[in-house]
């Protein structure tokens, strides 16, 4: 499998195709020629506006969020030594959702465009901190406790959200519902810059963990015997994975399956060495989410489908296929 599909050329080509698809997709039918004109610095002012201020930032956001989610999923899978782990397993998404719902219910979100992402980020970080604190006993982080603490915290936060939405204004309910399905609409360049300033260093730090994560997949004792500082590695993977997840949720809401499926697919296709899995997941996640976003807004006229629906509808059958192939190969 590895030799038949060399990873970097395949994924880079896929990403370029995804970027072009993203730029070409939208209700205003812009052709390839118009886009080329704009990219060369000229073109029709209307087309410039659409490309540079609507589609451009949106495609960029898909790239960053997709890369962030896939990397976060890869880190969580390595940390929990479980291929079924995903970025939202440990409560980040519920915390962020609670923050977002609070902002919606109190009307802060309507008053200021930054209130919702900020509230989501704060909520996600708070959930991370609580779960982290619970799972740390006597200076050690027990990953089994971590999973339980995360799942239970998620359940509690979901109950809080339901309570707020039941008692809150009805329009908040609808907005919150669509927020939980994820969307990349209306992401500005400024938001992209902030996101990139946050994601790029986190991605680089994650790559530095890859070798220790490889050792950790043999178990904590074996990793320690191979010279890994096990507690430091687990802490770093948890914090980085959670921060990545929190940032992407704050910007784009909850987008499922990318963080689960992408790193897993990369593993099946190109092996389990995290020095490859993590960077390749970034590339693949970026490409997949950009394509998913094009599919969410392209063919449906003025209506946009929540991107989480697309990632699940397309991602799951593809993944099942890959899973069957991977196990029979």
């Amino acid at each position, binding site marked *: 499998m590895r030799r038949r599909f060399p990873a970097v050329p395949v994924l880079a080509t896929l990403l370029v195709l995804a970027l072009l698809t993203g730029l070409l997709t939208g209700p205003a039918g812009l052709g390839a020629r118009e886009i080329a004109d704009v990219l060369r610095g000229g073109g029709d002012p209307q087309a410039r506006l659409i490309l540079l201020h609507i589609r451009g930032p949106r495609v960029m956001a898909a790239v960053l969020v997709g890369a962030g989610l896939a990397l976060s999923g890869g880190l969580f899978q*390595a940390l929990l*030594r*479980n*291929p079924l782990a995903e970025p939202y397993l440990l409560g980040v998404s519920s915390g962020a959702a609670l923050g977002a719902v609070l902002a919606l219910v109190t009307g802060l979100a309507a008053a200021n465009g930054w209130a919702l992402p900020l509230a989501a980020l704060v909520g996600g970080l708070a959930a991370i901190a609580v779960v982290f604190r619970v799972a740390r006993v006597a200076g050690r982080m027990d990953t089994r406790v971590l999973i339980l603490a995360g799942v239970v915290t998620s359940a509690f936060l979901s109950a809080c959200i339901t309570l707020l939405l039941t008692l809150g204004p009805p329009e908040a309910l609808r907005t919150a519902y669509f927020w939980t399905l994820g969307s990349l609409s209306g992401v500005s360049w400024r938001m992209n810059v902030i996101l990139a300033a946050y994601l790029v260093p986190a991605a680089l730090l994650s*790559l*530095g*963990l*890859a*070798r*220790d994560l*490889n*050792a950790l*997949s*043999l*178990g904590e*004792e*074996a990793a*320690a*015997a*191979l*010279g*890994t*500082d096990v507690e430091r590695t687990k802490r770093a993977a948890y914090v980085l994975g959670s921060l990545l997840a929190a940032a992407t949720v704050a910007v784009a809401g909850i987008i499922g399956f990318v963080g689960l499926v992408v790193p897993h697919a990369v*593993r099946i296709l190109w*092996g*389990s*060495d995290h020095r490859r899995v993590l960077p390749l997941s970034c590339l693949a996640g970026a490409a997949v989410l950009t394509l998913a976003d094009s599919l969410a807004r392209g063919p449906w006229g003025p209506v946009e489908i929540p991107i989480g629906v697309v990632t699940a509808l397309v991602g799951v059958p593809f993944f099942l296929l890959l899973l069957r192939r991977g196990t029979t190969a």
Partner: protein
Amino acid sequence: MNLGLSSVSLRYDGASDWAICDVNLEFEAGVHSALLGPNGAGKSTVLRVLAGLRPCDDGRAHVDGRDSREWPRRELARQMAFVASTEEDAFPVRVREYVGLGRNPYLGGFKPPTDADRSVVASALARTDMRDLAERYVTNLSAGELQRARIARALAQEPSILLLDEPTAHLDIGHEYAVFELLSEFVDEMSLTVVSVTHNINMASRFASRVVLMREGTVVADGAPPDVLTPEHLGTAYGWPVRTLTGDGLGCVAVPVARGVPE
């Protein structure tokens, strides 16, 4: 490089008995020592404390004179390799990658492996007769092959000390011989300090130059195999009458399988 325990006691969480109690053991460089004893005697605990993987409640474990918990893990892993009796395999990896993990202590987070690292891995594979299996997935290996892969990984650490917990569990007699022969080569040719835990008294008698017999967290007997492997010691340790054979033809003490209580 030598290592040892002085007055080490350890009790696991929730246990009422000591796992090991006031154990004093010193392991000389370039010697293969075997730890023998019944299940629960504290053999594996001794290895873990030596490897700095468990803190002890009392006493001190040292490696080359330095407290084994005070060694930075990475530095210790360049001196000492530990082959546990079981391990997890969360993600499928190929044998070459698996053995390559033995180079981890020499590589920082961002430093890629050099040709020198790759050649160490290649020679560890060759040494353990794993070259032809290098591209196989570890999860598809037989028990004997997996054990060799793990010893290869330990070898790739280029250690001076090798600790092994039941390296021949689940292996047939041929593979068991192969593993012990390999350990003897490491001791003879590379002067490795080897400490192995085993249940095979005959293999320990044949291949180790020192045997430590344990029972209920304490050392029952310690010394050269013929001195330690007596019916009295073995009977005390295992709680079962064990007969031994000695003789010119054997070259070492042997434990035959007999039924009933020997007179």
